[in-house]
């Protein structure tokens, strides 16, 4: 493995890991805020108990999300120094704005919410959890703006061998950003709702606080059904935008070696990956790829070979084909898990309507295991996005192999991969253990939240 491969492996590893926690944080923060609001409005102790219960899960999850986020920020400079020099002028701004506008908000208000029970007035306390949710959503926006610039650079000019910002407005209205951000927010809501549904299902199976967990299940389904559907629709629209700006990414994700018109969608095939241009197609849907990629029944989709030849003319001799196998199966893993989640949610919705969600053991058993699906979905989605951009680190402007740190050797990168690998595995086991432990605990008692009083003992949270 060359240093650039190791650098990529490290970035992929730490980013995938970080993004296991991020969507749970965003989704659960919004859902916890919804529960808290329900309690504030109705003064029904049941919602208070649910708020505290899911708030604890949120906090366990945020802890890992925050600390692994530090690695994300540092490793641009550590492993990708030449990339940082090249893009800092444009790419750094959204990261800095993220910190100033969003991350401060999220962290400070998380402390206020967590320790604010009985110290803040109920109304102000309610505002603090919404600030946490808002901060998390805003934070994702700036990160997605930065990432989208790597997919489709806008609002810059090249000068002195680097990209310089010429329009922050263009960066923040990048069409890739607008669609991708909406897509990520929806996927995060789906993730949070699935976690809440799985935990509720576990308790419903055991009839512990069935009434309250039934309410939680209803709220999560109310988010999950429209959320999963919207995530798929927006994702498909994002695909059309990407076909325009990164046609190679789409061609590779369909293992479409030759240009086609109309194009059928390959649901499942054997082969067709790297350098295999004649896969054994098992199931195909006519016209579907044309429709998905171009929004037209008979739309043309350029093939990998044609695009590669075109890029070679434009950018010089090189191989411009990403790993097609990874691309093809990432796309399908993402879409199929999203579809499964949507079907499960529909089933849950139907059971709710028939008032049979408490009895249906099969639904609840499946809903528990479904908690794994959004993580597969999210990871596959990012593999699709980032692997599909290769060999570029910034589409059309800089190659990944030109972005690494000249002063950092292979041994150093290996050391850090091993260090973070070991640390992340241990952290994952501990966090998972705590999550499961707290998810299986019965709901806490309905302690009344007293009127705010300065002198009253602070609720110790740690």
């Amino acid at each position, binding site marked *: 493995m060359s240093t650039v491969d190791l650098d990529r492996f490290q970035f992929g590893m730490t980013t995938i890991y970080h993004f296991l926690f991020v969507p749970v944080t965003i989704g659960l923060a919004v859902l916890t805020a919804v529960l808290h609001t329900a309690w504030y409005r109705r003064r029904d102790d049941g919602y208070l108990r649910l708020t505290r219960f899911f708030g604890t899960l949120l906090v*366990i999850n945020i*802890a890992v999300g*925050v*600390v692994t986020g*530090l*690695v994300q*920020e*540092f490793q641009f*400079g*550590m*492993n990708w*120094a*030449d990339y*940082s*020099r090249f893009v*800092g*002028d444009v790419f*750094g*701004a959204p*990261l*800095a*704005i993220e*910190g*100033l*506008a969003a*991350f*401060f*908000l999220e*962290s*400070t208000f*998380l*402390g*206020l919410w*967590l*320790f*604010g029970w009985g*110290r*803040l007035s109920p109304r102000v306390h309610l505002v603090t959890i919404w600030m946490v949710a808002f901060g998390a959503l805003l934070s994702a926006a700036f990160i997605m703006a930065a990432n989208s610039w790597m997919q489709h650079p806008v609002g810059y000019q090249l000068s002195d061998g680097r990209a310089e*910002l010429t329009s*922050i407005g263009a960066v923040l209205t990048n069409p890739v950003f607008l669609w991708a951000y909406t897509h990520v927010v929806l996927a995060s809501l789906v993730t949070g709702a699935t976690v809440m549904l799985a935990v509720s299902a576990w308790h419903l199976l055991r009839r512990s606080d069935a009434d309250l967990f039934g309410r939680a299940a209803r709220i999560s389904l109310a988010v999950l059904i429209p959320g999963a559907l919207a995530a798929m629709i927006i994702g498909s629209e994002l695909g059309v935008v990407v076909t325009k700006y990164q046609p190679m990414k789409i061609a590779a994700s369909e293992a479409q070696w030759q240009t086609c018109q109309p194009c059928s969608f390959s649901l499942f095939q054997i082969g067709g990956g790297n350098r295999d241009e004649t896969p054994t197609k098992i199931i195909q849907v006519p016209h579907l790829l044309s429709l998905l990629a171009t929004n037209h029944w008979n739309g043309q989709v350029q093939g990998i070979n044609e695009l590669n030849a075109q890029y070679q003319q434009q950018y010089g001799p090189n191989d411009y084909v990403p790993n097609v196998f990874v691309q093809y199966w990432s796309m399908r893993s993402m879409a199929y898990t999203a579809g499964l989640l949507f079907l499960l949610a529909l089933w849950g919705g139907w059971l709710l309507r028939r008032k049979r969600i408490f009895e249906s053991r099969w639904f609840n058993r499946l809903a528990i295991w479904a908690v794994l699906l959004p993580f597969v979905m999210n990871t596959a989605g990012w593999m699709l996005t980032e692997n599909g951009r290769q060999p570029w680190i910034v589409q059309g402007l800089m190659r990944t192999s030109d972005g690494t*740190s*000249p*002063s*950092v050797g292979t041994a*150093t990168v290996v050391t*850090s991969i091993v*260090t*973070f690998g070991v*640390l992340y595995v241990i*952290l994952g086991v*501990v966090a998972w253990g*705590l999550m499961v*432990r*707290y998810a299986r605990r019965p709901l806490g008692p309905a302690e009344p939240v007293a009127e705010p009083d*300065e002198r009253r*003992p*602070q609720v*110790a*949270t*740690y």
Partner: protein
Amino acid sequence: MDFALVWFTLVTLLWTGFFVLEGFDFGVGMLHGLVGRTDAERGLAINSVGPLWDGNEVWLIVAGASMFAAFPGWYATMFSAFYPALILLLVALIVRGVAFEYRGHRDSPRWRRNWSILLTAGSLLAPLLIGVALGGLLRGIPIDSSQEFTGGLVDLLTPYGLYVGLTVTVLAALHGSTFLALKVDDPVRARAHVLSRVLAPVAAALVLGFVVWTQSLASGWFPGVVPILAAVGVIAAVVLVGPRREAWRFVATAVALGGTVATLFVQLYPRVMVSSTNSAFDLTVQNTSSSPYALKVMTVVAAVFLPLVLLYQGWSYYVFRRRLTLADVGGGL
């Protein structure tokens, strides 16, 4: 308007703010096992920074992101050069961050002891490593004409950098013990006082040594206002040992720690990283900064959001201003 200077000042302020705020929760992390003999007492110490530490750490994140945005060349060279130190720093920060959150989640003594050990180690290591890196910026490391670090691990461990690391670590410990004396009740408060009394003279000696050593790296004999502030702050911390002087002593330790960190940046300007190979290869504000437009955009953003941040973070300190007693953590989570 010289936006590069504005951003150098902001980066300085962010690093200084980071140490002034996170400094005390580093200190509390280091000392919680010493000031707390029982589990409840240790929990009390940790809870005193419970609602605050996470917001404090964001100062580091924003300091790093600001360097990336305003001085990409500085960010790239510094972070790739100090690679080994930064891996260790990240491990330390990850471990202590998780320790804060997870320590109280189980009732087993072994679980809590292990997290306490990790919290202590992470809190000790983090300021030490940042100090080594910041000291290295001023003392100089091998950098060639293309702004690339050319040295190895040994070049990063300059005696001056190590001394700076030691100084800020001891200052953070003093800042933390002072914070505990201010924020919690006896018997933890009394032990924090004892620790402050022991730590203050050590910190004072280190800071005075730091001011002299740093001056020897610069031209002229007058150290300037910021180093003098640091020295005055730390001497005030030695003098203000009385049990009712905690608030003032906290101000003094904040000034001492903030002044020490700011001194490094003031002495650097207009350089941002000194090359020990050749002073012609020094990284400067000019040769590492972003374009005027990018800096202008960021200045507008900072002008809007930084005051807001100070406002709501200040408010959160106000909300949690009350002194904590053992009764607060009595139940023990």
